């Protein structure tokens, strides 16, 4: 190591030069010290160098421990030259930049990581796996339930009316449902069809009646509620069922009015409470008269997925998850074993029963693994299980548990390098549906028709029409608006005495209707999320927000009161009320939402945690003035100078999202501005100017695209090549900001993975 002193001499020279160049009271930064004293042996980023054969500088010592270590041992050729504050600041630099586990996590390069199914993917895949062997679910137009009314006379039953009832909310009193055809004394009614579940969760069904009643939901054999025999006077029945969102479930309701002298009247209401919602009569838009097959829904609870990177993904496993997959596998196994004859298309006394069941087990594994089985696989997952001791059903259970515990079912893209049509089919179906490929995809894969971008585009376009694709898109838009989990909105009852839980629930419905209207329309134009005047109101909302509608009016878009406007979704009263305190609007929450979610910007931390100034303390100020006052210090302005002016542009909406021209008898100032990433300043005189800016902002389009990408693919966009965001951007513009076409393009650019990973989209792709 004869050359070392020379290096030290040179370094010393640097050190002196550096010191002279700086002000005397300005100590060297940790980075500067590192560059001078350490980088030569340890490498510029602590990676080590070939020459010195140093190991990478990584570990889990604390800054304090590193400081002591440096003081005692470093630099090797001049121990003692880096001590005290110098050692501490270089230790802090090393720790923060590349040494600590947190720093290493920060520096990791994006790649496509092996991922297991997310909880939602798992549940949907199981539902479709079992569904593959059962009667398909008919979609049906959602216009209500089929009602069949039966006259009962002298024990003779005659079906006299067959019609569609939009909702089930009847009070016949002592009369008849149809005086000309049915005697009021004794009759029965059966409603059947399907119920659509908008999101995943527990649905509580509530039936109110004093007559005999039974209700079946997603189980055509065992009633969810059985009150056919009346005992007691309880007029209300409740029971819950866990349902997956975006699917329809068979439903049947029977009521019976008897001749019993004490049962003079007849009335019935079918209501529900959806996850996060309030109790209501099931609205027409969730009911269809088509009675389809059941859907198997796994009841085993799973630990929620990791969302620490902003979207759900399955790149880690935990013990709780592993245990849940075991419990669920057992649950599925007993479900399948209990009805294996029907699923396998055989019967208990069929001579070829064993063969058929074995064949069914093979098809189940093939469906679950999303590809044909090899001979060895058939031997392991099927044949071997039938050779073990025990009866036929024990063998079926073993196959199901094993298949459901297999990595081929639980993980996506397990095939690694071999990138065939089956892998593409899986990426498409999990990307757009969070579920298994359907028959058409599997057929296309088998026939080699999933090899080109055109193939992928064709299938993706077909798949968009499926309710599962719509459910996934809806889920995304709700997340984009930060409204997932239906946050409960409660307001100051003194300031807003008329704001009720019902209003909050109606607002939620109103938001969903507007989302549907935009995302599922012909043009599906992203810009309309900002521009469209689509505030749906019913009678209750109309009264609260000053529209003219009769009290019981259903949801519709009507002309807003003079002078007011709620453009797009960012000014929708649900959002405005959510992004507000219970008594006052919050320009900061609104600004942060626009800045972060909509514009995709990141924010630096506030230097101090501050509780908001209470309006009561500064009663003479407007909200705008109060927020400006509180965030006026220089240290706050770095961020609030960006956040507040965005939020101020929504000051025309109060804490419940009502349009206002004044606050505290002073005119509302809704002017604001935004400084974009390249430093250009955009001024807004009003909310309208704000939304017009957002609608055409490239930053908004990019943020939307990136978030949608992550929601579909569940892998970092950066892992698919640097050219991808720009290509998607170009396509978005070419397709007139069509949201659904954007989904297709995301699939086109990711489903053929080996191709997209090795090269950025070419010019010919751009022309597509």
């Amino acid at each position: 190591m004869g050359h070392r002193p020379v290096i030290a001499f040179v370094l010393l020279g640097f050190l002196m030069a550096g010191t002279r160049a700086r002000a005397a009271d300005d100590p060297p930064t940790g980075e500067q010290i590192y560059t001078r004293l350490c980088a030569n042996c340890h490498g510029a980023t602590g990676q080590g160098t070939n020459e010195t054969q140093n190991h990478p500088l990584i570990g889990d010592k604390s800054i304090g421990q590193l400081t002591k270590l440096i003081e005692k041992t470093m630099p090797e050729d001049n121990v003692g030259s880096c001590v005290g504050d110098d050692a501490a600041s270089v230790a802090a630099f090393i720790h923060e930049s590349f040494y600590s586990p947190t720093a290493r996590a920060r520096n990791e390069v994006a790649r496509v990581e092996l991922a297991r199914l997310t909880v939602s993917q798992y549940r949907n895949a199981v539902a479709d796996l079992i569904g593959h062997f059962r009667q398909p679910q008919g979609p049906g137009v959602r216009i209500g339930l089929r009602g069949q009314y039966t006259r009962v006379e002298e024990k003779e039953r005659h079906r006299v009316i067959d019609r569609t009832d939009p909702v089930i909310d009847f009070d016949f009193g002592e009369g008849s449902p149809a005086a000309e055809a049915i005697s009021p004394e004794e009759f029965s009614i059966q409603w059947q069809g399907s119920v659509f579940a908008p999101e995943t969760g527990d649905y509580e069904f509530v039936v109110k009646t004093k007559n005999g009643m039974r209700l079946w939901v997603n189980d055509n054999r065992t009633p969810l509620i059985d009150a056919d025999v009346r005992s007691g006077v309880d007029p209300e029945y409740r029971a819950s069922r866990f349902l997956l969102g975006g699917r329809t479930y068979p439903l049947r309701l029977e009521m019976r009015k008897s001749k019993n002298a004490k049962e003079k009247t007849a009335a019935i209401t079918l209501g529900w409470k959806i996850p996060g919602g309030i109790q209501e009569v099931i609205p027409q838009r969730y009911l269809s008269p088509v009675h389809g097959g059941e859907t198997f829904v796994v009841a085993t609870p799973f630990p929620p997925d990791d969302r620490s990177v902003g979207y759900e993904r399955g790149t880690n496993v935990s013990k709780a998850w592993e245990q849940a997959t075991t419990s669920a596998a057992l649950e599925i196994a007993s479900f399948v074993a209990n009805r294996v004859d029907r699923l396998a298309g055989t019967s208990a006394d069929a001579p070829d029963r064993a063969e058929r069941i074995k064949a069914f087990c093979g098809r189940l594994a093939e469906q679950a693994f999303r590809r044909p089985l090899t001979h060895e696989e058939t031997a392991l997952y099927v044949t071997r299980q039938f050779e073990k001791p025990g009866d036929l059903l024990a063998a079926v259970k073993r196959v199901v548990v094993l298949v459901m515990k297999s990595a081929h079912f639980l993980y996506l893209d397990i095939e690694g390098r071999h990138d065939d049509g089956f892998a593409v089919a899986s990426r498409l179906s999990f990307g757009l549906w969070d579920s298994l490929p359907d028959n058409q995809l599997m057929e296309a894969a088998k026939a080699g028709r999933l090899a080109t971008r055109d193939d992928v585009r064709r299938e993706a376009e077909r798949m968009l029409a499926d309710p599962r694709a719509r459910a996934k898109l809806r889920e995304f838009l709700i997340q984009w608006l930060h409204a997932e989990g239906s946050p409960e909105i409660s307001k100051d009852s003194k300031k807003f005495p008329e704001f009720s839980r019902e209003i909050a629930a109606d607002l939620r419905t109103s938001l969903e209707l507007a989302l549907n209207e935009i995302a599922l329309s012909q043009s599906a134009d992203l810009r309309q999320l900002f521009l469209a005047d689509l505030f749906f109101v019913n009678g209750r909302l109309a009264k609260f927000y000053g529209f003219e509608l009769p009290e019981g009016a259903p949801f519709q878009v009507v002309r807003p009161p003079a002078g007011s406007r709620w453009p797009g979704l960012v000014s929708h009263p649900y959002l405005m009320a959510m992004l507000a305190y219970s008594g006052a609007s919050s320009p900061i929450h609104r600004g942060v939402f626009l800045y972060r979610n909509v514009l995709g910007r990141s924010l630096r931390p506030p230097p101090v945690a501050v509780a908001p100034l209470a309006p009561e303390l500064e009663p003479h100020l407007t909200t705008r003035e109060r927020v400006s006052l509180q965030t006026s210090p220089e240290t706050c302005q770095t961020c609030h100078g960006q956040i507040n002016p965005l939020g101020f542009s929504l000051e025309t909406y109060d804490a419940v999202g009502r349009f206002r021209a004044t606050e505290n008898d002073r005119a509302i100032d809704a002017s604001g501005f935004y400084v974009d990433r390249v430093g250009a300043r955009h001024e807004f005189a009003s909310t309208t100017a704000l939304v017009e800016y957002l609608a055409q902002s490239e930053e908004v389009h990019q943020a939307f695209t990136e978030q949608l990408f992550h929601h579909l693919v569940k892998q970092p966009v950066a892992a698919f090549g640097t050219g991808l965001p720009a290509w998607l951007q170009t396509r978005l513009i070419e397709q007139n900001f069509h949201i659904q076409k954007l989904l297709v393009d995301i699939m086109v650019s990711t489903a053929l993975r080996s191709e997209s990973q090795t090269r950025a989209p070419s010019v010919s792709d751009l022309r597509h």
Partner: protein
Amino acid sequence: MALHVSRRTFLKDLGLGSAALPFLLNLSSLSHANPGNPKQRLIIVFSPNGVVPPAFWPDEVGSDFKLKRSLAPLEPFRSRTMILNGVADKVRGDGDNHMRGIGCLLTGIELFPGNIQGGSHTPAGWSSGHSIDQEIKNFLQSQPESRTRFGSLEYGVMVPERADTWTRMVYAGPNKPISPIDDPYQMFSKLYGRVKDRESLQSILDDVQEDLRKVEQVVGAADRRLIEEHATFVREMEQELKTSASADVGHPVPELEPGLKHENDQMPKLTRTQIDLLVQSLVADFTRVATFQFTNSVGQAKMRWIGVDQNHHELSHEPDSNEEAQEQLTKINLWFCEQLAYLAQRLADTPEPGGEGSMLDHTLIVWTNELGKGNSHTLDDIPFVLVGGAPGFKMGQSLKFPQVPHNRLLLSLAHSMGHHLDRFGNVDYCGDGPLSLG
């Protein structure tokens, strides 16, 4: 003799061959009193959003202290209670105070960077270290005489259905949060279920492992770790299947009230049910370490049953000058304290299985919180209220410390369980080692 026959029959019913018998009968939960080595247990109870200091902290220091209103339910246990004021969570770094409050509470180490954004500060992810209860669990599980079926159990009440920094307190390791189980039915089936499914599972375990081994060879090197980790859990399941035959629980399998739901207004019932299950699991020696998490950091419970309609977190932001809010917050913490007292009472009423005194004598309950005070979001004066008994802990006193780092208290907890650690979490906060609480 009769005892042996019935036990053998029982094990046969579990579907286990006689080969497993000698092993099972050596398990501590199946053997009788072991007076030379008394059991010691630790229960950590979490409630969120800070406390109202004047209604919480005793004015006095020492053994002659009065309990303030929020702590009044502990009056019957005053001589077995220790209140520690002036213990601070000094851990800084990424995340807001609520996130670090819960994420560093039992880990004593910084959060990883992430993009979970709180109300202020930088975004953060999960904790970069494991929690003290898991450290103690690993220690106890490493020794045959203290090994139990689960090692630790994580109970919850009304924990929101989402995994983020605010909802997780217990960590198996860096980036490895453990979800508390807040569904009593799920906890029940974890404790007592699966007896019949064991056979199916055992018969396919080798095949599951073969499946994973094959897949491990196919995936890239960078992803192999995930599959390896998965395979570890499968091996652990194999172990647990063998030992869980000790579901010879030593008491009748409890019956749960049907129809309990994950609903705000059911919180009192859920709490009782979970506490009862917790006590049962300790009686059966399923575990000696447990955590009990009420809601989450920033918890939004609406305690309508005690006349508080507004949600807990929103209330906790109200200034000190809002006397009505402070009164309601005092009542909220009083309610949490009542649940703590119920747990203590259940343990006090249960004789120590195979030992001396009551179970409470051999159990230390630690009630804590992610914040000192809700409206200031301070991490100073983190509430730590200890009830029960532990070696080296002098109960029946109120102590005040000069904002010592809470890592030192975590060390004391480990020592009380016989695990003589001298550092845990961020070493820089471990200073002079465990706090002396004798």
